[in-house]
Each structure stands twice: as C-alpha cells, then as structure tokens.
C-alpha cells in the first residue's frame, strides 16, 4: 500500500552493480530524471570540451542562466495552478522598451541625476510588467477565459505595443550607470544579476514552502472546486500567480536590458517555450498541483548548460533546437514512468 512497496528490495544478497542500480532507482524515484540528465550533460560536455568545466565558464553559465531562472520561477507559479503564461516574452520586451524609453527621455533632460533616472525607469518597466500580469489574471480568474487564449492575446498586444513604441528600432542612450550596475556590476564578489536572482529564488521558495499561499497555489491547481469548498479565494490566488509571474519576467527583462545596454522589442522571443520546458523537465505537472522551486532552478540551468555546452562543442544552432526538443520529450516520458512507480495503481 505504501510507496516503498513499489521499489521494495529483493532479499537475495545483491552484487555491486545491482546495488548501484537500486540506489540509482531510488534516487530517480525521489528526485526525478533531472539530476541524471544534468550529470550526464556535465560528463559529456566536460570530456568533449576542456574549457567547459573551467570556473570562468561555469560562472558565465550561471550569469547566462539568471534570466531564464527568473522567468521559469514565474512560469512555475502559474503552472502549478493549472494554467500557463505565453506572454512572459512580451512582458520582458515591454519592460525593456518602456524602461529604456523613460531613461532615455529623462536622461537627456536630467543628465546629472542618473540615480533618479534609473529608479524611475525601472519603476516604469515594472509597472508595465505588473499591468500585463493584471490583464492576464483578470482575464483568467474573473472572466474565466482559458489561460491559452488570454496569455496568447496579451502576448500579441504587448509585442505590438512594444514595436509601436519604438518603431522597431532599439532604444539607445541609457545611463551608463544602469548597465554598469545591473548588467556587469559585482557585489560581494558576485555578479549583481546573480544576486538579484538568488534573492528572488529565495523569496519564491519561502512563498511556496513556508507560507500558506504556496499551499493555496498548489491546491487551486490540484482541484479548484475542492479548494473553493475549503474556503480558499481561488480567484485571488490565480490573480496573484499571474501577477507574480509577470513581475518576475519584468525583473528578468530589466536585468537583460542592462546587459544588452539597449531597450529591445525582440527581447525574450523564445523565453515562453524555454521557461515551460525548464519547468516540465523539472517535474512541474502541466495539469497543476505539483512543482518544486529548487528543481525548477536546476531545470533552467540545465537548458542553459546544454546550450552553452553545444556552443563550446560547435554544434550548430539548428541542431541545438533538435536536441532541446528531444531532451524535453525524454524528460516528460521519464517523469511518466516515475509517477507510475510512486502511485502503485495506474488509473
């Protein structure tokens, strides 16, 4: 009846390879497929390319990963409620364009007050992100439209607006301090983007594991009707999930803007798919109700790691897409097996 039964050990004295298999199997049941894929990827790329395992490349990898980590974190929040957000890319673009436009305009009229300009620019960008989240949340939680339609519509609106505002050309002339700080700055020996991301991850971890809200998010995704009968304000919970998701994407957008030193409407073009892939590889259920923060961080790093490794080993970008798609499918299939091992009766 218990979960242990499914992986009960045979009584005959096991040989060494058998023992290793059993340990691996138990780890697989507990942690999922991601640790194995991660280990395999490190092994493969580490042996194919010498610089891959250098401290510098690993730091680089971490720095590249933060943008996807942030977005995936938000994506996880909506996935566990049983929805998803296709507009995260747009949120990044809109944030980028609006913050850049504000900084550009203010920067030329207030050249001496870079600090104020940056604060106002970032605020404007975050407000743009917040608006996107609010639109998504209201459409889904109050109007009851499916997340697919709402977030796809909003993604189109946002992208159009970003292009319209910029006329399709990148916004230049940002205060140099903005990029120096949020793009390339170091605090306590760590790149600032990494630090900001770490703070966000810690906050979301607390939210999911140590606040009642985390349980509510999972409950709404697990069984919305039951959650409502338990006295949970399901609409508010949904609204919150989409707002948090958009704000995280927005923070990611700001950091990326600082990194590329321009405001761009094309920022985050593939991030919606990548973030959903990162979550799925990390074992977040597309049907809602299941998701863990550390796994999602690992999932996002994994995707960047594979891309980074393939770049170092000169795999072309077309082939990279093929590989990523394959990995995604393998991960989901493996997760299905795992589910079956955890719940003894497949129903």
């Amino acid at each position: 009846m218990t979960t242990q039964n499914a992986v009960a050990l045979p009584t005959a004295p096991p040989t060494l390879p058998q023992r290793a298999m059993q340990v691996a199997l138990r780890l697989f049941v507990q942690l999922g497929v991601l640790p194995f894929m991660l280990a395999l990827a490190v092994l493969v790329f580490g042996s194919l390319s010498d610089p891959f395992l250098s401290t510098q490349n690993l730091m680089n990898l971490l720095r590249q990963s933060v943008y996807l980590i942030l977005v995936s974190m938000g994506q996880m929040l909506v996935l566990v409620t049983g929805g998803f957000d296709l507009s995260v890319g747009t949120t990044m673009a809109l944030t980028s364009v609006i913050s850049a436009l504000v900084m550009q305009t203010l920067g030329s009229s207030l050249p001496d007050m870079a600090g104020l300009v940056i604060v106002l620019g970032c605020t404007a960008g975050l407000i743009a992100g917040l608006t996107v989240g609010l639109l998504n949340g209201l459409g889904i939680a109050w109007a009851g439209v499916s997340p697919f339609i709402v977030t796809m519509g909003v993604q189109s609106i946002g992208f159009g607006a970003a292009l319209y505002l910029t006329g399709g050309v990148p916004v230049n002339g940002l205060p140099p301090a903005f990029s120096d700080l949020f793009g390339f700055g170091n605090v306590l020996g760590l790149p600032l983007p990494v630090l900001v991301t770490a703070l966000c991850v810690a906050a979301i971890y607390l939210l999911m594991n140590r606040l009642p809200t985390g349980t509510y998010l999972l409950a709404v995704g697990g069984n919305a009707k039951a959650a409502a009968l338990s006295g949970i304000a399901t609409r508010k919970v949904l609204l919150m999930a989409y707002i948090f998701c958009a704000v995280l994407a927005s923070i990611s957008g700001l950091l990326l803007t600082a990194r590329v030193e321009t405001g761009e409407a094309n920022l985050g073009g593939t991030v919606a798919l990548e973030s959903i892939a990162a979550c799925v590889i990390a074992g977040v259920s597309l049907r809602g109700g299941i998701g863990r923060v550390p796994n999602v961080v690992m999932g996002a790093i994994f995707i960047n790691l594979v891309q980074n490794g393939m770049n170092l080993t000169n795999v072309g970008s077309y082939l990279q897409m093929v590989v990523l798609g394959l990995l995604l499918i393998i991960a989901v299939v493996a997760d299905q097996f795992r589910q079956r091992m955890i719940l003894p009766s497949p129903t």
Partner: protein
Amino acid sequence: MNDFHLLHTEGLSRFYPGVRALDSVDFDLAAGEVHVLFGENGAGKSTLISLLAGANTPSAGQIHVRGAPLQFTNVQDARQEGISAVFQEFSLIPTLSVAQNLCLGEEPVQHGLLDKVALLQRAQRSLDELGFEIDASALVATLSRAQQQMVEIAKGLRGQVSVLILDEPTASLTERETTKLFALIRRLKTQGVGIVYISHRMQEINQIADRVTVLRDGKKVCTVKAADTSHDQLISLMSGRTIEKIYPHIEYRPGELVLDIQQVSTPSGVHNASITVRRGEVVGLAGLVGCGKSELLRAAYGLDAVSSGKVFLKGQDHTRTNPTKSLKAGYFYLPPDRKSEGLVLGFCSAANITLSALSGPLRGLSGWLRKKDAQSMASAAGEQVELSHRNLGKTVGLLSGGNQQKALFAKGLTRAMDLYVFDEPTVGVDVGTRSALYKVIKQLCESGAAVVLISSDLPEILHLAHRAYVMYGGEVMGELQGPEITEGGLLNLFFDAKETLA
C-alpha cells in the same frame, strides 16, 4: 417559531435551467438532534445542504441561523457561524498531503511562516481523536476512497462546529468505521451540536435519527419522528409507491468455473488469496476498508500488478493482463469511484454508457460509428437501471450523485459478459433504484453469468450472495455458503483472532 432552532429555512429554493432542484422548502434543525434527509436520487438533498453550507446560493427563500436571517456567499461565511459540511463529492486535493488538506485555509503560522511540524501534529491528532488509522503525511492520491472519506469527515470537524452536515458519509465505509462515526455523532449530540444527515441506508435511520424530512422532486413531503415511522412508510413517502421487496431471490444454479484465482499476491497488499467463481452464482466479497477485497479483483482485471500466483478465466491463464484484454475475454469490472475512475464527467450519460462498446458492437463495417445503435443501446441500458430518459442527454457531472452511479452501472450492460465484478455498486443509490439494480444482478446471474459483489454494505452481501468470502489484512479469512452467511458469521471473520480477544 416558539421552540429554539439552531437553524431554519423558509421557502428555500434553487433553480437551474429546466430543473427545480429545490422548491420552496421549510426545514429546521434543533440543537442536539440528528435530522435525516431522505429522498430518491435527485430529490434535492445535496442541493439543500449546499445552500445551508454556503457552497451554493439560493434562488429564493431565506436561511435563519439562531433566529437571525443570514446570507452566505461562500463556505467560509457558513463556517464562521459554526456550520460545517462534509460533502457527497469529495473536496480533497489529491496532490497535497492529508495534513495539508486538513489544515487548508487555516494553516498554523509562526512568525508569519508556515509551521510544518505543528501542521502535521495537529492533523495527526485530529485523525487519532476520531480513531481513524491514517498517516497524516500520506499523499491523498494514495488513499482509498474510504480513507479519503475519513479524512473528509475529520476536515468537517475542525474548529468550532455547532451544525454538522454529513452527506452520505457512510456510503463507502464499512461497519467498523461506521460504528466509530456513529459514536462520534452521539458524542456531538450530547454537546448540543445539530446534525443534518443524508443516507440511503435504512438501518442507519433506526440507529441515529431523531427526525426525518422526506424530499421528493425538490419539494418537502413531510417531517416525521423517526421512532414513529416504519421503513415501509418512509419508502412510500419518498417514492410515492410501495416497494414490496428490496432484495430479490436469486436462483442458485452453479455451473462451470469462470474465475479461478490461485494464491495471488499483489504489490497492492493482497497475500496468497484464492477464490473461485462459477456461472450462475453471486459470490460476495466482504471485509473492512483496505482488507484487499477490491485490490484482489482489480489485479485479476489487470488494473494492478500480480506479483505471484495464477489467475484463470474460463480455464485460460489470465495472470498477466490489462483491462482491454479482460473486457475482450468477457470480464467486466465496475469501479467504486465514479468520479476518478468510472465516468467522463464532461460527457452526457448516454456517451458514458456506450463508451466501452465503441470499439465493439458500435463499430460499423467500415469503422464508422453507428450513432443510431448507440442511442438505442444507451436508452435500453438506462431503462434497466431506471435512469430516467431526460437524464440520458445530460452532462454526467451535473447529475445527482445517485444518478451518476446509475449511469456507471449501465456501462456494464452494453455487452454480454461472462463475469461481472461489481465493486460497491450501490454507493449512494436510493432504495427504489437499488432494488432495480439488484434485479439486474438477478437477471445477469440467472441467465448464466458469474457475478462477484464486492461490498461494504453488509445487508447486500447477506441477502444476495450465494457464497461469500471475507478478507482481512490482504488474506482470505474464510468462505461461507448459503445459510452460513449471517451477520454474526461474517463479522466473526472481519477481525482476526487477536483483535477479537482484545
């Protein structure tokens, strides 16, 4: 109102397009009483309590709590007034743990953070106090339906409760848990809690009811004192007709061996169980919750794995199988949990009924569906289980619980089978319909099919089974035949020797 009422309603109504689910009902509940709601499937019982519990809002009428008119917009409002409900349809989140479910919405918090230790302790304590043997850290998805029901009851009892509403709480419990629940109800009564209780089991009315309110087609027929009213009177009030006999007599003509299970063990907790089933007999399978009675036949059907032993179906080895193969070989299994395993809730009843026939008799020569045949097949099967015609076209998810169960039962009647395994077939079905379902079982058995009846409802086994096995802790404890099948005989085998001594 001259005497003191915890709760009363005036002209309470709830309308849906085309249905008066509840039609101008006056109901009252006194402190310290058990007030039973009785009525056919779809009579409006669940609708009434959903209004009382704030899960639904009335179309007309008024609810008064302790004399004051109140309006509930959600379950939380009602809880604030001390009204707590255990609904017929489960309100547990399968992906969360038992403890998380029990404390949902009222998590213990320390310094603004979730106190996980306190969460687990509190949940385990509330389960232990009720005498329910369930691990609070277990995932709800891994619990059986009966265990989920117990968690559901524990959830209903958290906090300060002055009105407790129980909608068919014993539908999937066995004697032992039911006894515990009734002891609990009596304890609550002495504390002045008012209890609204819905059940289709007549014997329970004798055991705990003070008053009974009978509903029919959404309207209140009358409220009577339980002590002054006989079963026959209640049934005729409920259905407007008299049912002479609920349990039919089934001829016993055992024929060739159909199912032969030999020393089967399963990962789901069955040890070395052997049973046989012949044509023309009804074999009962009784036992406590989690004793393996359901698991054994699920494994034989191919829903769970068999780790050792053999299963023979009509003389053929049928040990490693799956549901598709089993159906082809003439083995039908009716699952106990209509929501999670039995029905596609978004489909109408007719589509559900014909679902498993789509690959067989309903497939035309060129592979097209035979729509006409499907329709007549659905209405024929529906008629047998007394599912009314207007319910055939309705979305199953919107039907009352008992009518859903009828649709589920009808699924088994679209193809002729050699072996029918009914796992808790009458959960939540009203007395009138139950007798119709029993007649179907009689027909199937007398026309030469083999029938296995897995049931937690003891009278069902007593009256219908020609032979009965009792299981305990995954093992078959004994077999009773014909006149040996008595309440005492069965119950003796329910608990193992150690427990009887203790």
